[in-house]
């Protein structure tokens, strides 16, 4: 029985993690390369409607590379800003006196999460205009919840005995936060950041709707033109990026596991 579960667990781990990252991704990369090279580069005429839609005559690896860079920039900026706000917010709602606000803060973050991303883009386009800034704002709002929630949960899950021992030995609450609570809750916190980053890779594809660039550019150019190859390039690259970000951050997360003393 136990061996069986182990076997299935091992099998599942192999299919999802290893096959995705080491087999599927190279295959997808080859498909994308072929599409880009054969169907886009060779068939788009300069001055044609397609070329106009894409905003440039040079559609090829360079254009794809630029889109990837834009996409990564969106994610990096929005996730960093989300971390900068969500971690302090998560810490705050675990503090004495601020616990009452935890519902409020988590509620705000929850709204950000549950409103469809396309709606957030539409709403804030009216306020902030189109472009990079609006996309970053929407992504930022989207990434808040997992980080706030995981920060708060991580801190709350620290063994109360450890906190009591620290208090009883004369640590100030600041020392307890910096030396005990944050190091011990960091793995859980990091898991939240990972979730946020992965969600943002997918959501950032919508940024193209408001002119923020990124891999979504190919998708929204491909739809009116009914160019499946263009749509595929955008979609596949976004998927690959999501998988890679998840994989890399997952590897880092594995190293963060804190040894837990079960008494």
């Amino acid at each position, binding site marked *: 029985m136990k061996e069986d579960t182990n076997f299935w667990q091992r099998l599942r781990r192999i299919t999802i993690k290893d096959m995705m990252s080491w087999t599927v991704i190279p295959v997808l990369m080859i498909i994308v390369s072929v599409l880009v090279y054969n169907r886009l580069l060779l068939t788009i005429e300069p001055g044609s409607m397609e070329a106009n839609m894409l905003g440039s005559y040079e559609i090829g690896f360079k254009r794809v590379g630029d889109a990837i860079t834009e996409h990564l920039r969106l994610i990096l900026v929005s996730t960093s800003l989300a971390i900068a706000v969500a971690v302090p917010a998560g810490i705050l709602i675990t503090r004495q006196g601020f616990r009452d606000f935890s519902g409020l803060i988590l509620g705000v973050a929850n709204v950000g999460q549950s409103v469809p991303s396309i709606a957030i883009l539409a709403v804030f386009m009216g306020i902030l205009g189109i472009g990079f800034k609006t996309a970053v704002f929407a992504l930022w709002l989207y990434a808040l919840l997992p980080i706030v929630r995981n920060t708060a949960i991580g801190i709350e899950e620290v063994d109360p*005995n450890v906190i009591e*021992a*620290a208090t009883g*030995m004369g640590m*100030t609450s600041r020392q307890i936060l910096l030396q005990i609570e944050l190091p011990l809750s960091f793995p859980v916190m990091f898991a939240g950041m990972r979730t946020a980053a992965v969600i943002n890779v997918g959501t950032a594809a919508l940024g193209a709707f408001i002119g923020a660039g990124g891999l979504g550019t190919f998708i929204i150019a491909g739809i009116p033109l009914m160019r499946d190859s263009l749509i595929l390039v955008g979609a596949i690259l976004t998927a690959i990026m999501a998988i890679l970000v998840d994989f890399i951050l997952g590897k880092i997360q594995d190293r963060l596991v804190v040894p837990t003393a079960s008494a």
Partner: protein
Amino acid sequence: MIKFENVTKIYPGMSSPAVDNLSFTVPTGEICTIVGPSGCGKTTAMKLVNRLIDATDGAIHVLDERDEMSNVLEMDPIQLRRSIGYIIQQIGLFPHRTILENIGTVPQLLDWDEARIRHRAEELVTMMNMPVDFLERYPHELSGGQRQRIGVARGMATDPPVMLMDEPFGAIDPINRNILQNEFLRLQQEIKKTILFVTHDIDEAIKMGDKICILNVGGLLEQYDSPANILAYPANEFVEDFVGADRALKRLNLVRVEEVMNSRPPLLQATQDVEQAVGFMTEKKIRFAYVVDSAQTLKGYVRVKDLKGKTGWVEEYLEPAATSIQLTTNLKDALSEMLVVDYANVCVVDGQNRVRGLIDTKMIHESVIESNAVAEGEEV
């Protein structure tokens, strides 16, 4: 010294106090165990000392490093806590820190330099009978008993005169608990700390305490006295019930074999003549006798019926003794040992296995009767 003066704690929103007008004094260098049923406020009472909880009324004085009594309520809680050793039930070792860093927690807060912290940690780990290379390990790499020892070591890191221990051996199996208790008592003989020791186990309270403070639900002090006095003269029905119907037996825990043994027992020398030995045993009216060599080391025993009509030396008829008891063993363990081997009397030996006396069940019985008589005499 720790001195409680009319200390009361009422939690906000509660009508009845958790600790009610508590007054007692723990003399310097003694262990005071606080014991009582759950809800008696024993942990609350302890936490009042290092102000994890603040008293509603009254004063608690502790002897500080300058040998002055100071009211904890007038001290800065952070400084106060750093000056008092604190050891809790689940130990609460920091899982992300090595044993060295764990032990060095308070020293580091007090800005000791690294070399001094390491030196002190090595000293403490050695004191706890653990190898120095444990310092580089993490808590999860240690067994439960080892973690418990590290917890104690961490509490003693800065050599505080006063220590608070909240069921420090509570979460551990009975065998290891016994070992840790004995180790700690031996250690206390050297370090002579003033300790407030919370436990729910009356046996542990009797064993560890120089004084026992028995609390009732609502934080009422029922009795504060030495274990022997509490067992002999329980102040009221509650204490009597709490210490248990077997309090006479528990008293055996408090008496050591050397206090009641016959220290001039009839012994035979291994090199004695058999005929002479039979004469000796007949004269003493005993059916068997223990045999020692010239250095008083226990060799075994001989029976009269085996020697009668024989010639030669005593050592030729020796039977090995199935057991012997150490001088410092308590009467309860001694009695248990005697019941197991079914001997009428057992040799009492010192650390070098030299015979120092004999003890039999009658002596144990007499010691119980004696203390009963004293107890009843007092009550009348």
